[in-house]
């Protein structure tokens, strides 16, 4: 598998590192950029390619946030974490969304990698 590019948006450094570390232990995923605002991430996406977008959002906003990122990066997979990291939604265009609650590191990594794999 070629190295996949991820960006992280509005998540604390510890959580960002944690997810990056969990994914990197299982697949060649490298975090290229970290953003403290969604607007900065959207500007970056319009100029660069991202395979995976990991974003923290309020639970009620995750659907809209994911849709917005997928509109800007149609080939990406978006992982949205909410409820303090208890809930995760993984979505990509033309692939059914997965909703994970009380998610474990393995479940999260497996779900994300399955999506990335399905995108080729």
């Amino acid at each position, binding site marked *: 598998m070629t190295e996949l590019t991820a960006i992280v948006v509005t998540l*604390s*450094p*510890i*959580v960002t*590192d*944690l997810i990056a570390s*969990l994914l990197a*232990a299982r697949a060649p995923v490298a975090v290229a950029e970290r953003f403290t605002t969604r607007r900065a991430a959207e500007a970056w996406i319009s100029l660069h390619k991202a395979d995976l977008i990991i974003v923290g959002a309020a639970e009620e906003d995750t659907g809209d946030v994911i849709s917005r990122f997928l509109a800007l990066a149609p080939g990406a997979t978006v992982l949205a974490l909410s409820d*303090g990291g208890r809930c995760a939604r993984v979505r990509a265009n033309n692939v059914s969304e997965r909703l994970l609650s009380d998610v474990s*590191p393995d479940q999260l990594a497996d779900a994300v990698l399955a999506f990335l794999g399905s995108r080729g």
Partner: protein
Amino acid sequence: MIVSETRLYREGLAEALARTGALDICGHSDGAKAALDALGELTPDVVLLDAAIGDGPGFAAAMAKTAPQTSIVVMALTEAPSEVLRWVEAGATGYIPRSTSLAEVARTVLEIVDGAQNCAPRVTSALLQRLRKLSEAAANRSNEINGTQLTARELQIARFIAAGMSNKQIARQLDVGLATIKSHVHNLLGKLEVQRRGQVVGRLGTKPWVKDAGREAMSRAN
């Protein structure tokens, strides 16, 4: 031991920290009750406590009482002075700021256990201010007899009276007029609600310095 209500953080952090080899993770727990139960069995040196846990400071206080030998390190804490004070006063040994990277967590934990907490300047300042207020409050309490606030001079005279010194001896000792001492003694007796100077000792009975007042005052007089 890691305590977090969020499984992803709890298990993920355990996995990531174990990988560093700097810390042995003896267990993790998803809540306060389970963690308190596990403390006796696991006897960890350090508990890494997620700042987002429900009633965190209350839990830290219970943990500090249950296992006083265990260091409680609050993880991913927003470094606001009021937040830090709230946790520290509850019993936390230290904290890892929310801005800390995962790579720094193990080192930060070891530093805290070693007695070296790295604080933002505004947090250090808040801690110093708090210390000063506590010190002032303690000083005020030491001047308080049965809920009555004595002036420093009245307290000094009360000590001499407790040591059995006469007004004349006290006046000589303090190098002031006898009338001044009589006035202070009058005010002192009024504040302590006693009629005679012999009753002063009874009013001061619980103060730790009363026992030594005689020796101290007499040595000063000599």
